[in-house]
């Protein structure tokens, strides 16, 4: 089963856990409802949609309210540290949490001892925390955008806010940034780099590139990276190997974007609704040209 840990942007949202459903235009977990906006809610909505389309179990989530003070995040770190040794998840995805080095290290120490070892995916604040802590290599997958890749590549930056200018991104330098991130031990075993072209890479370099369809407006829309992380989490948890899951998730995400025909003003919930249609289209025509290029 897939477990997603993250935050909801409300100070009064309680710490909750359970399987997640979509009811109407909201997520439902226990007795709590959540609007589908960018962030962990978008990740979960995409994951619920994909799991349903693929006839997989709905994702499990551990959520707490946090508007940036970190108080909710610390509660969730504590909860995960206590609860994970008694749970059994095949895949754990860690998302919008306040990046705090000591709490990441404590949680990683617990996750590293789980047997069997789950696939560990980190995005957003938790990815920052893993890199800050020097423990990136203990994760199976990071999902940075190109700007965040520059942060991973900058061995001195503790947060993207401090990425040095000479490293800040130019998309045509992605291979160099990937190499630099691995050279300094600041990348997970695999990276999905989200951008105009999406890449899957490991320590040997770029394994796959997907550059079609092109939907330029997606870069401006908050949550399109969250949906990709949700999709790849479901596909890995469904048993696909990481490379195939990554490519499939990238293709679904890009095709979903095209189906939605967004403008830069489109909101993520409008795009997420198109995920089932994209999955159906790719299942019916799996060889459809989405610009995939395997290089590794």
């Amino acid at each position, binding site marked *: 089963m897939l477990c997603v840990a993250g935050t909801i942007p409300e100070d009064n949202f309680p710490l909750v856990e359970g399987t997640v459903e979509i009811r109407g235009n909201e997520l439902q977990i226990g007795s709590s409802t959540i609007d589908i906006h960018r962030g962990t809610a978008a990740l979960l909505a995409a994951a619920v949609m994909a799991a349903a389309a693929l006839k997989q179990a709905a994702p499990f989530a551990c959520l707490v309210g946090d508007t*940036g003070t970190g108080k909710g995040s610390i509660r969730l770190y504590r909860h995960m540290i206590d609860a994970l040794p008694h749970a059994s998840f095949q895949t754990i995805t860690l998302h*919008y*949490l*306040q990046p705090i080095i*000591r709490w990441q290290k404590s949680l990683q120490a617990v996750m590293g001892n789980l047997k069997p070892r789950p696939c560990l995916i980190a995005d*957003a*604040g938790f990815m920052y925390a893993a890199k800050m802590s020097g423990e990136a290599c203990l994760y199976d997958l990071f999902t940075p955008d190109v700007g*965040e890749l520059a942060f991973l590549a900058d061995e001195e930056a503790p947060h993207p806010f401090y990425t040095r*200018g000479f490293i800040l991104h130019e998309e045509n330098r992605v291979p160099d940034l990937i190499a630099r991130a691995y050279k300094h031990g600041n990348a997970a075993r695999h990276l999905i780099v989200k951008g105009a072209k999406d890449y899957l890479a490991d320590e040997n370099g770029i394994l796959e590139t997907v550059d079609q369809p092109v939907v330029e407006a997606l870069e*401006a829309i908050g949550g399109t990276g969250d949906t990709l992380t949700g999709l790849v989490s479901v596909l890995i948890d469904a048993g696909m190997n990481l490379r195939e899951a990554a490519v499939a998730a990238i293709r679904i995400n890009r095709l979903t974007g095209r189906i939605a025909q967004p403008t830069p003003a489109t909101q993520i919930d409008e795009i997420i609704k198109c995920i089932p249609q994209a999955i159906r289209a790719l299942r019916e025509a799996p060889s459809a040209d989405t610009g995939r290029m395997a290089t590794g």
Partner: protein
Amino acid sequence: MAFFGFLKRNKTPDTLPDQNGRVERGILVFENTSEVIQAENLLKQNGWDIRVMGPPPEIRQGCDLVIEFPLIEELEILRILTTADLPPLKTVPVSSPLLQPVDIFQIKDYGRYLMVRAANMKLTVDKETNVIVNVSGGGCPDVPFLAASMVGQILADAPSPREIGHTLCGYALQLAYEEVRRRCSA
């Protein structure tokens, strides 16, 4: 003074010991980024020559900012902060260069829409209406909160990330917000 005015000033190379080996600058360390932002506003309003910077590795906890200040003014600055109920956790002399916040913007013009990226944060505005239409990027928990608070608002009326944000992602979004406002008012 603008919140990010420090980015536009000449960087003073005074974070290291002077030629006589004296340390001239110190840093104020706070409980969280929100307190740093409040202290920065207060000290700048009082005319102090301070800068918001990244902390040195030995005191780094995660999503951190510190305030660099003239060490010789420590007592007066501490008095102001304490009076405002914003006492720092500690003050530390600066003995090595501090990290500089990012100061590069990337601009994408979609025609009707304009997107500005600062560090890992992107803000997109409808140029015809000046309405903020999207916030993307970032990873700290205040980003979805900031997006929910700002999207759909007219630029001039929207809450600024400085006022309601708490993290470095919020700080980066403030940079993008200031740049969008500058470009849309030009």
